[in-house]
């Protein structure tokens, strides 16, 4: 596992505001890393600083151990990477001419360029469009051309800045599938900025969640999804239930946490009296009908009333108030099976292992 790109003490300050502040970050050769976060989190700025399209205010970017702009020339570095933007940004020429443009800039032409361009056109399924003017392409065709142009120069690092955000869902799905296949073939190191966490989960080996120019958490998708480091990351990765509570009891493996008068058992570390935050993903909450006993004694089963049911296509989001607010995702099938409706009493249960505990530092 070699590190291909490293950022050290990287800061981008523009117009007096700190847009990016990344003390350290390493990208491993061959991996796909996604930067996710809301608009204005600094994803695009970080991409541009890493690709040296924007000079960082402080700090350095090391490509294969060499500082860009010092030991390694900026132009030389840029010639070893490629970038694809949200807009295809095609040149006013044919599809072929567009895909060949990076090669032409490097002084590669003739049969060699033709061979490379043709293989990329095939790879992205646009060989039949090669003589078409870029002006006549659909959004999907244009973005495929932009991707083919990027891969034509065999980049050592590929930067993608919201590459699918402007596409309609079927086109987006087809292109994401193509890119997934091409990345598996080429093993190109990829850094992608996106605000779509599903896209990130699908394509990435690691995810960096950004907020206010900083990387809040960088880890494998499963870790970020299930063990977010703070409430911001938790809510950004789709944790619907985020509860503050106090540790009441501790045994070898589990904690009893008191939240608004209810006791919730969780697996994790903590000490009595400590303030913690509990994160419960909606997929991990199961609903059943109350079993008749007024208060069920089963662990982590809470009785409550359904406040609202929101249809989300394949799932329904069910909001329950059971002493504290809890959100569950229920399949349409289960919803009908249990005849769930707003105002109805239900029992909600969560496994102690499915609850993530964030310890509040300083208290």
């Amino acid at each position: 596992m070699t590190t291909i790109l490293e950022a050290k003490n990287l800061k981008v300050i523009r117009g007096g505001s700190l847009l990016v502040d990344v003390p350290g970050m390493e990208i491993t050769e061959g991996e796909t890393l996604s930067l996710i976060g809301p608009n204005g989190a600094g994803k695009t700025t970080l991409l541009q600083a890493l690709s040296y399209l924007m000079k960082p205010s402080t700090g350095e970017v090391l490509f294969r151990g060499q500082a860009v702009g010092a030991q390694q020339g900026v132009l030389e570095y840029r010639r070893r990477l490629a970038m694809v933007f949200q807009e295809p940004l095609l040149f006013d020429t044919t599809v072929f001419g567009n895909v060949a443009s990076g090669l032409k800039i490097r002084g590669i032409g003739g049969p060699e360029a033709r061979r490379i361009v043709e293989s990329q056109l095939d790879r992205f399924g646009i060989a039949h469009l090669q003589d078409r003017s870029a002006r006549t392409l659909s959004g999907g065709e244009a973005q495929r051309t932009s991707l083919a142009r990027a891969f034509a120069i065999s980049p050592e690092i590929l930067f993608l800045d919201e590459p699918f955000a402007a596409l309609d869902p079927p086109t987006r799905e087809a292109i994401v599938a193509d890119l997934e296949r091409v990345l598996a073939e080429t093993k190109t190191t990829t850094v992608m900025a996106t605000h779509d966490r599903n896209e990130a989960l699908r394509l990435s080996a690691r995810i960096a969640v950004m907020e206010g120019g900083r990387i809040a958490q960088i880890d494998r998708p499963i870790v970020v999804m299930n063990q977010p480091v703070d409430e911001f990351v938790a809510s950004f990765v789709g944790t619907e239930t985020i509860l503050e509570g106090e540790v009441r009891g501790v045994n070898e493996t589990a904690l009893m946490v008191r939240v608004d008068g209810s006791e919730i058992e969780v697996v994790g570390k903590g000490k009595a009296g400590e303030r913690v935050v509990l994160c419960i993903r909606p997929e991990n909450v199961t609903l059943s009908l109350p079993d008749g006993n007024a208060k069920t004694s089963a662990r982590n089963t809470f009785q409550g009333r359904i406040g609202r049911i929101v249809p989300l296509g394949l799932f329904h989001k069910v909001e329950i108030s059971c002493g504290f607010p809890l959100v569950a995702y229920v399949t349409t099938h289960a919803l009908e099976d249990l005849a769930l409706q707003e105002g109805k009493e239900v029992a909600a249960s969560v496994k102690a292992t499915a609850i993530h505990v964030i310890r509040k530092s300083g208290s």
Partner: protein
Amino acid sequence: MDIILEGLRQAFILLVTFDPEVIGITWLSLKVSGTATFISLFIGMSVGTVVALTQFPGRKFVVSLINTGMALPPVVVGLFVTIFLWRNGPFGFLEILYTPTAMIIAQAIIATPIVMGISLAAMQQLPKKMRLQILALGATRLQMVRILIREARLPLLAAVMAGFGGVISEVGASIMVGGNIMDYTRVLTTATVMETSRGNFDIAMALSIILLLLAYLINLVLTYVQQRERPR
């Protein structure tokens, strides 16, 4: 009414028989205005490109100056060029007043801001991220400028056409610094002025038809450029 019909008939005859005087005047017009446009192309396009692609203090002021220059009155240019080239003026020693060279200078001064202003707008209309995309493709600064000019080639062509259209049809500066000397500095516009004042409507009309044809051709190209779509 007769005067118009007769004029048109005569004009038509002059045109289809390639009347040597009409041809000579037209040729000189094309030569003078073409050369002036060619000069303005170099200055206008390079300055326009630099202003479009760089940031510097006072940039907005420079842009406003260029835009004002696009509406520079030809007679004002004619006046200043005449003063500069006057026998005891700063460049009087060149002795080029009342020559085609003086006309080329005056017309280049008129055309340059037009070419500059339209080039500036053409380069600024390219998507901002286009520059980043070109740099990310590994281009040097020079390669980037070349690609951007290529991308804006049709609006830039429009700039050239507008510059040419501006000078081929102006009369004030040409008559002031050229003097409308027969077979030497007499061009389409100055000849039309003179022939009209003499009541020679046939030849004036023949010359005007040529001017109109040129204006139409120029606008045909401009319309085509404006109606065209940009790639995504």
